[in-house]
């Protein structure tokens, strides 16, 4: 194998699994250490810079970081990264003084943003401090987009939304045109905007066209529309018996909201099996905790009604089978159909993009699914000054992806309006610092806790089910939060190997608690992986390979389950191993992202 080039930022970035998995590449271990040090405001700002909505995401993020967390491979469960983010937000105090100064001197450029959701707000956050004038359009009366309209209050209190949306709108040079739906991109293009960002989300809930749908329409609701109406106070009750169709996070929000608005018998019905449901495991767990049954392998057949009065639904029982090609398919079992009585049905079976307001004769290209052609790196459409982001770009994803898109689009807009090539993307900023303080002392805490993952306390059901605005999760208190920080392995503190200093004494091999290190003859990757001290069977994790050593061997380190405990460096007599913090921060729009 070739020796590893650790000067490539991606090599060590990949070792920080959480950060690498995060679409916005938030430096997770860095903020976890700040929380451990009680520096909540600083931890918050590390987050704010990277993901813009720490308090919101600390409650609602899809947490791609957690399944990636190395701790999950070393022990049973990952660090509760998401809920630690909330700890930073809950205890930060006043961070007003740490925010960018409002009313930056204008640069004369004007950007229109369609939709006031997380993607657009990220673009605004990145561009306004640079002097851009941003105009945000949204049909809703308040800014926040789906964060405000689709996430129920018992998961995300309104104050948190107001606060974090406020940090952006307070920057000045932001013109909010709320309650103002954009009906024509052509008309907007005719105005004097230098760039237009489309962050309009995936606003159309998929409908279910089966018998009885039209007749019983009065008691059949599209999930996201219904949630939005609940959010804005237009709906405050539902029937006693409710069926929620769908297995995603929206379905979980619908059933839990129903339970709080008068639904006594709320049932979730899903076509697929429990494991295959799209909802995050913890959201399913939350719903079940509230006594909501989830019924699987039932395909809706018809809405049963009596002269338009909804009575219930009929379902066909199916089972998962594999066809000849090994693909999973749902096959009817032939059992009698299942009838579930109900007063209301919420349809939460998916969301779609809708662009009726984009004229097809203005030069924008669409693909065969009706989605605009968008460059996944630059977020640029086929009209150079129109950019997309969030769910509007590539279909429904989540908040943290919207933020990542927003950053990318902001970079593109800034580069374009400075006459630069958009395809040249800025490299991340990397700060390297040895953590050595003394012979056995490090400036990071390498004594990691062996404790299992801490559970976030819940408010009791008696209280939460009575009021839709009462938040269910209480969040970690400072003590529990600290305990959880101690589970983080500090994967950004990297084991850096200096071949010229190594005397091949084996001390690092002998001390490594997880047998990461081997000195052996070089070979092809697959073969080499098999003959390491502990074979490196997780191929998603890289091997760190040194140049040839004095004895003709190489050092091979499997990054997979390295604890970053620093014992290799402590036992190294010559300092050939050092623990160095690689703080990797994404470059956002501004001078640093430009080539000149």
């Amino acid at each position, binding site marked *: 194998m070739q020796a590893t080039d650790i000067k490539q930022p991606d090599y060590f970035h990949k070792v920080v699994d959480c950060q690498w998995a995060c679409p916005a590449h938030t430096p997770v271990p860095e903020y976890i250490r700040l929380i451990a040090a009680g520096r909540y405001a600083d931890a918050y700002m590390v987050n704010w810079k990277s993901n813009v909505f720490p308090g919101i995401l600390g409650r609602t993020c899809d947490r791609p970081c957690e399944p990636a967390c190395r701790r999950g*491979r*070393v*022990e049973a469960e990952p660090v509760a990264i998401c809920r630690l983010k909330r700890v930073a937000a809950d205890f930060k105090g006043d961070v007003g003084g740490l925010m960018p100064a409002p009313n930056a001197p204008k640069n004369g450029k004007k950007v229109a943003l369609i939709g006031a959701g997380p993607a657009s707000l990220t673009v605004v956050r990145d561009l306004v401090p640079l002097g851009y004038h941003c105009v945000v359009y949204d049909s809703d009366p308040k800014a926040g987009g789906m964060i405000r309209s689709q996430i129920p209050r018992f998961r995300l209190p309104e104050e948190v939304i107001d606060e974090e949306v406020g940090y952006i709108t307070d920057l000045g040079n932001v013109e909010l045109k709320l309650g103002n739906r954009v009906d024509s991109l052509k008309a907007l293009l005719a105005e004097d905007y230098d760039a237009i960002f489309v962050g309009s989300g995936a606003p159309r809930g998929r409908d279910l066209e089966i018998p009885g749908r039209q007749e019983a329409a009065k008691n059949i609701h599209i999930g996201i529309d219904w949630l939005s109406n609940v959010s804005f106070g237009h709906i405050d009750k539902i029937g006693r018996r409710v069926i929620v169709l769908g297995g995603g996070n929206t379905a979980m929000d619908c059933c839990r909201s129903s339970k709080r608005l008068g639904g006594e018998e709320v049932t979730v019905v899903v076509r697929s099996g429990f494991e295959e449901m799209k909802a995050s495991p913890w959201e399913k767990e939350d719903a079940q905790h509230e006594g909501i049954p989830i019924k699987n392998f039932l395909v809706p057949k018809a809405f049963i009604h009596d002269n338009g009065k909804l009575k219930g639904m009929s379902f066909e029982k199916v089972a998962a089978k594999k066809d000849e090609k090994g693909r999973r398919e749902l096959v009817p079992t032939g059992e009698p159909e299942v009838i579930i009585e109900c007063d209301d049905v919420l349809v939460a079976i998916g969301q779609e993009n809708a662009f009726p307001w984009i004229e097809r004769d203005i030069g924008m290209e669409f693909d065969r699914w009706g989605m605009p052609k968008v460059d996944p790196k630059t977020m640029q459409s086929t009209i150079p000054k129109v950019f997309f982001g969030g769910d509007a770009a590539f279909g429904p994803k989540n908040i943290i992806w919207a933020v990542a898109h927003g950053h990318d689009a902001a970079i593109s807009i800034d580069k374009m309006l400075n006459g630069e090539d958009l395809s040249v993307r800025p490299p991340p900023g990397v700060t390297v610092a040895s953590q050595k303080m003394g*012979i*056995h*002392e490090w400036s990071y805490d*390498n*004594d*990691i806790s*062996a404790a299992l993952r801490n559970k976030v306390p819940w408010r009791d059901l008696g209280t939460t089910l009575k009021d839709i605005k009462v938040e269910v999760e209480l969040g970690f208190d400072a003590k529990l939060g600290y305990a959880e920080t101690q589970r983080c392995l500090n994967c950004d503190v990297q084991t850096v190997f200096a071949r010229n200093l190594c*005397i*091949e*004494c*084996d*001390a690092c*091999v*002998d*001390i490594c*608690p*997880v*047998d990461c290190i081997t000195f052996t003859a070089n070979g092809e990757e697959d073969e080499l992986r098999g003959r390491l001290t*502990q*074979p490196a*069977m997780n191929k998603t994790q890289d091997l760190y390979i040194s140049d040839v050593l*004095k*004895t003709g061997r190489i050092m091979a380190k499997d990054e997979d*389950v390295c*604890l970053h*405990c620093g*014992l290799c460096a*402590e*036992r*190294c*007599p*010559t300092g050939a191993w050092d623990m160095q913090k690689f703080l990797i921060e994404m470059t956002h729009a501004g001078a640093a992202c430009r080539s000149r």
Partner: protein
Amino acid sequence: MSYLPKPKFRHPGLPKNKLGYTRRDYEGTVSTLCAGCGHDSISAAIIQACYELDLEPHRLAKLSGIGCSSKTPTYFLGQSHGFNSVHGRMPSVLTGANLANRDLIYLGVSGDGDSASIGLGQFAHAIRRGVDMVYVVENNGVYGLTKGQFSATADAGSKSKWGADNNDSPIDMVALALQLGATYVARSFSGDKQQLVPLIKGALGHRGAAFIDCISPCVAFNNHPGSTKSFDYVREHNEAVNALDYMPVRSEITADYPEGAHEQVTQHDGSVLNLYKLAADYDVHDRIAAMTYLQKKNAEGEIATGLLYLDPSPKDLHAHLQTVEAPLNHLTDADLIPGAAALEKFNAARR
């Protein structure tokens, strides 16, 4: 040393032996020796050997004297018996323990100061009596605990870290062991676990006096140019006479070696040593030829390593003394006080 205990986390794929133990279950507390000490590698080799042998930790007793080397039993086999004795007196304590209970496996760990200076007499007598033990000398050629004075095994002409020449003749522990009648004699290097681990396994299966001289560079005081016990010097001058493959019981040989280069020796406990000759004409069973060969290599400035001498059917101290089979603490009053009739019979035989 480290301030941290070694984290309990282990590789999720870490294999287990027949007893259900992982290699890490054979560890002791974290070493307090200098970073990079060769002795720590020897500890790791002992851990590896015991793990691979599926050894029940309570079946082994580790004994040592004083010195860096003699501290190491704390760092391996944390669940085994241990005795840290007076300087140079480990062989006596081990002999006594062995006489009292021959059911245990005895591992004596010593250094060049402990065994070649203050304990030289003790070493000599334990070997010549054929005590059933593994005697490991962690040989670094210096007194590390007192900041690097030459020890009795330092080669004449080698230089100290401070530039002084050593003018005294060295004691060759392997030559002594051969001359005194050890029945399993090996030399190895802490930096070569591939060689060391099978040698330790073979020695643990040997039912007689097994001696391993293990060169173990002192990173703090004897790893400089001019030293003959540094990593670089030993690597450059290491001449292995053979490679050893240890098998617990007789089994099919699958490795493909040229005709005549391979020898299989069955030890008394049924374990099999597969020896692959690296030096032509070296006969591991010829004690006198081995002594000559080693002296010759020594004169050439080379370090002969590997299994240097083996008597597969040794007699040990218990055989010489015709002692009782059972450990002494298993003997009951009936065994120890046979009564007047037995005494009368005994006395009658003397008349």
